């Protein structure tokens, strides 16, 4: 579980520290840093797990405008299998024109080094924290990303596996298509590759498929099942079968309504990620979903967290979600005019007789 994230010198996140719990609702006005947090988490996942180089992120242009500091610092802390991992990455500009490079990248377990990458030199340690290898590497990408799982680096591999199961979503039904030109291991943030990711999921972990089908039958009228129709060599088209009065009709995924596509996406995330113990950040998941369907999905999400010990950070402005999650699981991102963002627990006036969402709508939760 992600227990801490620290970000310094990225957009409005300056010396920013956030300690999320297992189930959390992130509230905050526009421009308070909520999306920036998701972007940093997505960057770290792609950088460390998928080995995407710095050059693809345009990080230097996103340094805090009112500071004149060269370095961007990020830290991740996670509690996994009873131990505490700390990952730290310091990014510096190098050369002319300046390009981002890793000044240092380190991973510790219970305060002891598993991996160090400082000034272009990698130091590898085994599971007993004994120095194993040293070599030079280009700091244009994560050196941690290049480490292959082996018998003597299981702790390091555990951290990477966990981060690999950490997903961030900003669902956009307009970007989704029915076409899956293969299996994709990782979902895109907007889920534009839902069909290809779904194709991978049903192959890799088929068990949640039945639960997904049941959930979708509950929330989409007439829904029967999802299937991947062969369409030429290695291509599949995702489509949904509906049944009405003894007749069945099939619709390609792109022919479904925006709300139906979002519901399929939300329940896919719920059953294939959260219910498997994974962690997700969902940015405004309720967009496009009918009011009738928000609370049942929220309840099912709570069920999945409680049963699988997954982790969910929701970013939402929706009253339905605020009313359910804010009192016990709410945090607020606050940003004073032109200043840096900080995090506070949602704490309303205990004597207030207004629902939490109404307090937020009035701005009274800050008083």
């Amino acid at each position, binding site marked *: 579980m992600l227990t801490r994230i620290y970000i310094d010198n990225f957009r409005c996140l300056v010396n920013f520290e956030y300690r999320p719990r297992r189930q959390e609702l992130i509230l905050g006005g526009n421009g308070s840093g909520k999306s920036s947090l998701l972007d940093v988490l997505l960057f770290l996942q792609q950088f460390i797990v998928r080995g995407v180089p710095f050059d693809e992120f345009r990080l230097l242009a996103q340094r805090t405008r009112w500071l004149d500091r060269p370095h961007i610092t990020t830290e991740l802390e996670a509690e996994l299998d009873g131990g505490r991992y700390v990952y730290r990455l310091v990014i510096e500009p190098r050369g002319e024109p300046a390009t981002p490079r890793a000044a240092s990248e380190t991973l510790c377990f219970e305060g002891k080094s598993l991996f160090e990458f400082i000034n272009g030199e990698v130091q590898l340690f085994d599971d007993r924290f004994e120095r194993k290898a040293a070599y030079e590497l280009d700091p244009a990408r994560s050196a941690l990303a290049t480490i292959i799982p082996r018998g003597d680096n299981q702790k390091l591999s555990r951290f990477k596996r966990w981060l690999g199961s950490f997903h961030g979503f900003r669902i956009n039904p307009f970007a989704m298509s029915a076409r899956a030109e293969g299996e994709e291991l990782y979902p895109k943030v907007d889920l534009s590759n839902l069909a290809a990711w779904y194709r991978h999921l049903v192959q890799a972990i088929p068990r949640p498929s039945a639960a997904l089908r049941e959930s979708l039958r509950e929330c989409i009228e007439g829904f029967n099942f999802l299937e991947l129709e062969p369409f030429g060599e290695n291509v599949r088209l995702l489509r949904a079968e509906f049944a009405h009065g003894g007749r069945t009709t099939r619709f390609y995924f792109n022919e479904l309504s925006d709300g139906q596509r979002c519901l399929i996406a939300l329940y896919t995330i719920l059953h294939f990620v959260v219910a498997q113990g994974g962690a997700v950040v969902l940015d405004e998941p309720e967009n496009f979903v009918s009011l009738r369907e928000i609370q*049942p999905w929220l309840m099912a999400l*709570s*069920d999945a967290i409680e049963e699988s010990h997954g982790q969910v950070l929701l970013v939402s402005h929706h009253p339905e979600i605020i009313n359910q999650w804010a009192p016990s699981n709410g945090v607020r991102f606050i940003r004073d005019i032109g200043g840096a963002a900080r995090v506070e627990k949602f704490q309303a006036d205990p*004597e207030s007789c207004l629902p939490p969402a109404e307090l937020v709508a009035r701005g009274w939760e800050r008083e």
Partner: protein
Amino acid sequence: MSDSVWVVVLAEDQRHQRFVRRYLYRKGVSNHAIRMEPLPSGRGCGEQWVRERYSSQVQACRRRSARAKTALVVVIDADTGDVDWRLRQLRDAISQEGLAQRKEGEGIVHLIPRRNIETWILCLSGRAVDEDTDYRCESGVDELIDDAAVAFFESSRINATMPTYFVPSLLSAIPEVRRLD
């Protein structure tokens, strides 16, 4: 596609909600049939929050029950009072609105844990508890809720044997939940 909501839950906080939600699932009620009313904004004002909303929820559920099966489940701690005192408060709340009192068999369920929901959760988990001690700050309560709700369901079935270790407020909840049958 599921039917409309038929169980409305008016609860003090998230633990109360979770206990009832898990109980209802066990009873075969799907999450599409359950409506959780908003929780209070601040902590420590839950019982007042529930009492203030009770009358309007009773009224809404009664109006709909004329057309379709509808139930209201109210979960409110007795705190340092007793169950009868809390019931009186609820009766007064609807009297003040000019509404008729709850009839026998009507689908309005009052779950009133004494001292609080944590007392029930620990009791249902087999722990020796009393109704005067405040267990709200006990660690590990959240992990016990799901199994406690299942135990509550099993004990509330027709012909189920009533465990001897149940605290009085928990025993008084058994006929209450049978109003949902």
